[in-house]
């Protein structure tokens, strides 16, 4: 084998989450009311567009979650020894982005630049010294020394647009065939419906945003190996690479946090609401106490403590990636502990309402046991609250990660995330001349991700909240 697969804890949880999503999709297919609610999401152009953009982010994040350790080349003369794997944990995304990951410059360079951003003193070939912007090692080296950058970029971009249009046509054809099969009215009808925005689901919006995403991706594919499209940071790393790697961290924080706290919030919330009495009192006491501690301070205290645990037990982790992954997972748990109270209170309130409804009373009168009632009658009817909480919390958590990492109580400094990118670049705007690209890239990626998540969350809430029918 040329590699050894590595399954980090957060990878595992992400895969569990994807599996849950697939199971839920199967479940939705079989239940008409759920299908109707999701159809409402699909009918809103905003929902479809936001979902398409989110899907692109999820694909990036999932590619970045397939980890492995590459096989090191065998040492000469010891061919029979056991294979040795590198201590660096890579992901499939790293392999795809190998040119970006490996083509490190010496320090800052602007987007599409061919020279470093700062002057350096270099020895001239004919003797003497000069203060010049030294040429980059990788950015734009395919050009002649005096050739301008803009025409070449324009040429490449035209090719990229061509590719994107091809991809879009292909997607359009696929969607048309799909719509034609469900409508049963022929391909041309379906295509015309989609173009006019008359199809049941808002496919036109989805295709437009898919086209934009395809354009960005193909532009990145053609340009990124030749230039540093978003420049390089202080140690010469490509900013586009850092931004793409940050996506996974954001997704992990945004989803795993809710996932790990979900069992507690659901179990305690329903138990408090349904059982009442001292159980209710105890659970209410628990979440009032946790709520009383200001969130940031509880997180800070817990992260400081976790840091001590991780630092005093270095032997738990085989590679640096596993250590930073443990810290990421711990951060998810800590954020989960501070944020489950809100969901728990909502579920308690809803259960209080549900337990007095006729069908629950009837089930009780028939002698159904409490666990059965909770599982069959209460749980399915509070699931919409859980779903809404899951999508509503996502964007807040992504934003919180950046702030926490900035404060120094977020992810491990070696984990690439929007927060660590901003943290590294915080003094760059004050420099003369100003370095603006790493901050802008981090903020722009974060803005698109959070905006898409916010819009999607709104549409989901509108579709599932019965009060907003």
């Amino acid at each position: 084998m040329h590699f050894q697969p590595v399954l980090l804890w957060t990878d595992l949880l992400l895969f569990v989450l994807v599996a849950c999503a697939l199971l839920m999709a199967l479940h939705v297919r079989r239940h008409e009311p759920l299908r109707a609610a999701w159809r409402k999401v699909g009918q809103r152009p905003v929902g479809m567009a936001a979902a398409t953009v989110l899907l692109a982010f999820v694909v990036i994040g999932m590619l970045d979650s397939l980890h492995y350790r590459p096989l090191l080349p065998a040492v000469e003369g010891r061919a029979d020894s056991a294979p040795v794997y590198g201590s660096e944990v890579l992901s499939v995304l790293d392999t795809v982005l190998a040119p970006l990951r490996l083509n490190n410059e010496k320090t800052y360079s602007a987007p599409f630049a061919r020279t470093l951003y700062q002057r350096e003193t270099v020895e001239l070939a004919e003797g003497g010294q000069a203060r010049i912007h030294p040429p980059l090692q990788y950015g734009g080296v395919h050009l002649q020394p005096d050739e301008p950058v803009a025409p070449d970029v324009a040429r490449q971009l035209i090719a990229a647009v061509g590719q994107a249009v091809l991809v879009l046509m292909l997607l359009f054809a696929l969607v048309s065939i799909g719509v034609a099969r469900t409508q049963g009215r022929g391909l041309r009808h379906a295509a015309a419906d989609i173009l006019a925005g008359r199809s049941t689901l808002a496919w036109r919006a989805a295709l437009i945003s898919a086209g934009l995403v395809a354009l960005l991706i193909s532009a990145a594919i053609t340009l990124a190996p030749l230039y540093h499209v978003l420049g390089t940071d202080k140690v010469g790393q490509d900013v586009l690479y850092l931004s793409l790697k940050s996506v996974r961290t954001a997704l992990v924080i945004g989803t795993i946090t809710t996932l790990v706290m979900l069992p507690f919030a659901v179990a305690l919330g329903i138990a408090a609401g349904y059982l009442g009495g001292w159980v209710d009192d105890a659970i209410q006491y628990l979440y009032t106490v946790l709520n009383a501690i200001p969130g940031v301070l509880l997180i800070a205290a817990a992260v400081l403590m976790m840091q001590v645990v991780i630092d005093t037990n270095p032997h738990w982790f085989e590679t640096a990636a596993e250590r930073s992954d443990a810290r990421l997972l711990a951060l998810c748990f800590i954020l989960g502990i501070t944020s489950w109270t809100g969901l728990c209170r909502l579920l308690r309130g809803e259960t209080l309402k549900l337990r007095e409804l006729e069908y629950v009373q009837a089930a009780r009168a028939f002698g159904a046991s409490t666990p059965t009632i909770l599982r069959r009658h209460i749980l399915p009817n509070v699931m919409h609250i859980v779903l809404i909480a899951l999508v509503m919390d996502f964007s807040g958590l992504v934003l919180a990660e950046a702030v926490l990492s900035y404060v120094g109580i977020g992810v491990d400094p070696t984990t690439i995330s929007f927060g660590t990118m901003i943290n590294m670049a915080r003094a760059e705007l004050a420099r003369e001349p100003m370095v603006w690209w790493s901050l802008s890239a981090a903020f722009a990626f974060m803005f698109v991700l959070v905006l898409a998540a916010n819009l999607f969350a709104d549409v989901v809430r509108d579709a599932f909240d019965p009060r907003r029918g």
Partner: protein
Amino acid sequence: MLGYVLRRLLYAVPILIGVNLITFLLFFVVNSPDDMARMQIGVKRATPEAIERWKVDRGYDKPMFVNNAQAGTARLTETLFYDKSLRMFALEFGRADDGRDIAREILDRMAPSLAIALPTFILSLFLSISFALLLVFFRATYLDFWGVVLCVAMMSVSSLFYIIGGQWLVSKLWALVPISGYTSGLDAFRFLVLPVLISVLAGLGSSARWYRTIFLEEISKDYVRTARAKGLSEITVLFRHVLRNALIPVLTGVVVVIPLLFMGSLLVESFFAIPGLGSYTIDAINAQDFAVVRAMVFIGSVLYIIGLILTDLSYTLVDPRVRLE
């Protein structure tokens, strides 16, 4: 009324004890003082003597809950739990790592924190309610639609961006106000205006949208239709009826944060170098000064509980239907 307040205050005691226990568990049981000492001194230089000295300096050398070396009540009072946890109820927080008295420091730093937090609170409450009312007045028009889009977009921007971008634009490019710093007295205005404006702007999107939902929920009720049918103008309906009734759900969110204003804002204070409680906390986190973090956790919880009680009381003021018995 008085009886109710007293009962609520009594109810706060078990919550504070819970908070106290959690913080104690977090800071002393998850990691022993030895671990903390090793980390603070540095793993390489942590000789047993250095660890012992570190613990004695900070009073961490006592047993956890029961001190068998002492007699009588000292068995319980000469312990970490009594020293570090229970004494907080008497607002004795001990000393920070730099040797200063934490309680004194907190008193000194409250004023700068409030100087930012109070104007921010009032201004953002006023602006977001006005903006929400404007959107509700023009509901189901393009103005409303784009207003909501603007709110969602503003919510999606990281607060770090508002701060970094605002500092760069206003202080560096336009050079209107100093980038950071603080003085006392009236002169502080020029240091305060930018952080206040930035914090207001950063919170505007989400709060305006939240108030808009509350107002919209209120406006679909029957009494509003009756008021319109009476021939009242839309403006009168909005201000006399909708706004007043919507105050009740608004209060739940607003009153609870008023006491927490004393805590200051972590981000804004650290970016603008304001010597308030927020930057104090951040510095303590970065320096891993556990005593200060513990003190801030305790104070934060006390303020939160005060906020809860104030919320209940404020209901009686705005809603005559609520009686506190």
